[in-house]
């Protein structure tokens, strides 16, 4: 079963067609790297797959739910790390994550282990989110995603603002999720870092998929773009 199945999906932000007709099929347990220039539509594609945006036209099914009708059902089973960390500045780290856990009906014990997993030290647990550095915030936000054990991970520039150690943590997390059978979509500029994790590299430009390459373990030469599926919509 495809986890993500988009056909000619057009998504508008106001009057701007951020996605201009995306065709994308992602199967379970794939790790897909989305690459492309700024403004290509990578972030919109992730938010769309998370069930936060309404399709203007085309068909879109994520986790078996049609995005035209049942976006709330999709939202409950995905984890999205966006540019903003979606934390309440005046709540402590623990309070923020406990709120998320309670809202999504998850055991509270998961909060502690998720924070440990992302290397957030115990002395930070009772610090309000507003006092954290950008890197710490990002790790907490990632812990919030990990906490939910989503079927579909949508990570927008997960390495941004993290140090070497933090980046390794993220890579470990993604590998672990994939091993558990979850599907991961990562948007990233940093090709070298995410490449070895990715099973597929998808290029997004002008709000559409322009290239879609299976990345074999024997790293593919980035310049030798061999298009093999759903490519070139225009």
């Amino acid at each position, binding site marked *: 079963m495809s986890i993500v199945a988009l056909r000619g999906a057009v998504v508008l*932000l106001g009057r*701007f*067609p951020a996605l*201009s007709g995306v065709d994308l099929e992602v199967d379970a347990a794939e790790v897909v790297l989305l690459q492309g220039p700024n403004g290509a539509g990578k972030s919109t594609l992730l938010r769309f797959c998370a069930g936060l945006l309404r399709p203007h036209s085309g068909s879109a099914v994520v986790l078996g739910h049609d995005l035209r009708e049942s976006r709330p059902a999709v939202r409950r089973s995905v984890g999205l790390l966006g540019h903003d960390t979606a934390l309440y500045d005046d709540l402590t780290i623990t309070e923020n994550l406990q709120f998320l856990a309670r809202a999504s009906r998850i055991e509270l014990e998961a909060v502690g282990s998720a924070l440990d997993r992302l290397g957030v030290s115990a002395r930070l647990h009772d610090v309000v989110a507003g006092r954290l550095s950008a890197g710490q915030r990002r790790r907490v936000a990632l812990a919030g995603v990990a906490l939910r054990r989503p079927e579909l991970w949508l990570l927008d520039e997960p390495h941004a603002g993290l140090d070497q150690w933090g980046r390794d943590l993220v890579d470990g997390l993604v590998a672990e999720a994939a091993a558990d059978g979850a599907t991961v979509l990562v948007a990233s500029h940093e090709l070298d870092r995410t490449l070895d994790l990715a099973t597929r590299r998808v290029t997004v430009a002008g*709000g559409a998929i*322009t290239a879609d390459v299976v990345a074999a373990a024997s790293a593919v030469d980035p310049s030798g773009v061999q298009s093999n599926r759903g490519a070139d919509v225009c």
Partner: protein
Amino acid sequence: MSAGAVKTGSRTTRLLGFAVLVGVLALILLGFFGAPEDDEQRDAVRMIFVHVPSAFLTYTALVITAVGSAMWLWKRSRWWDIVAHSAAEIGVIFCGLTLFTGSIWGRPTWNTYWDWGDVRLVTTLILFLMLVGCLALRSAGGDEDAVATRAAVVGLLAAVNVPIINRSVEWWSNRTLHQKSSLTDGNLEDLTLFTLVVGIVVWALFFVWAMIHRFRIGWLERQLRAIDLETALVQRRAEASTESAGETSQ
């Protein structure tokens, strides 16, 4: 009328428009020369022929706005959204006219332009403010669907609250300068009543005419947005080819 000009009018609206023009002439003749003067109000009573019809249509417009808003929220039907928008815009005009003719009429008969104790006056003023707010939201711009949803909520809020506002002002003032519904208590002279009915019919015809034209304008705007979107999509897709061309040449 230059040849070849494209209009939102059709045979139906032209007939309607003609009927309105004839009706207005008849209304002026009846209102000023046909209907007799009132014993107490003298000739000031002739204001009733413009005031009551616009009040009647204000509340009709409010009901249509509410129905259109509910249908947009329920079915997400663009057709109803345009209906709600049209009715709100025309409603604001009639509401403003109601307030204006009301206070002009109030001056000679009640000796004041404005009376805070009067239920219908205050209710209509608050309704006017809400309708203006609704249109302000529409013109504030943003995502088309989001704007429609916001305006629909305000439209419903206005319709739902008007009876409550009316009740509260009625208890508050406990007095009204308005005559109890003039239509039903039979105090009006036959010809005055007839003229009033003519007035309501003429204004209602104008309302229908304006609704049709306004709806068509809303529909045309929608068409133009769809065309704009097509061009934007083409441009957006073209970005992809230039980007990838740039990438391979690097």
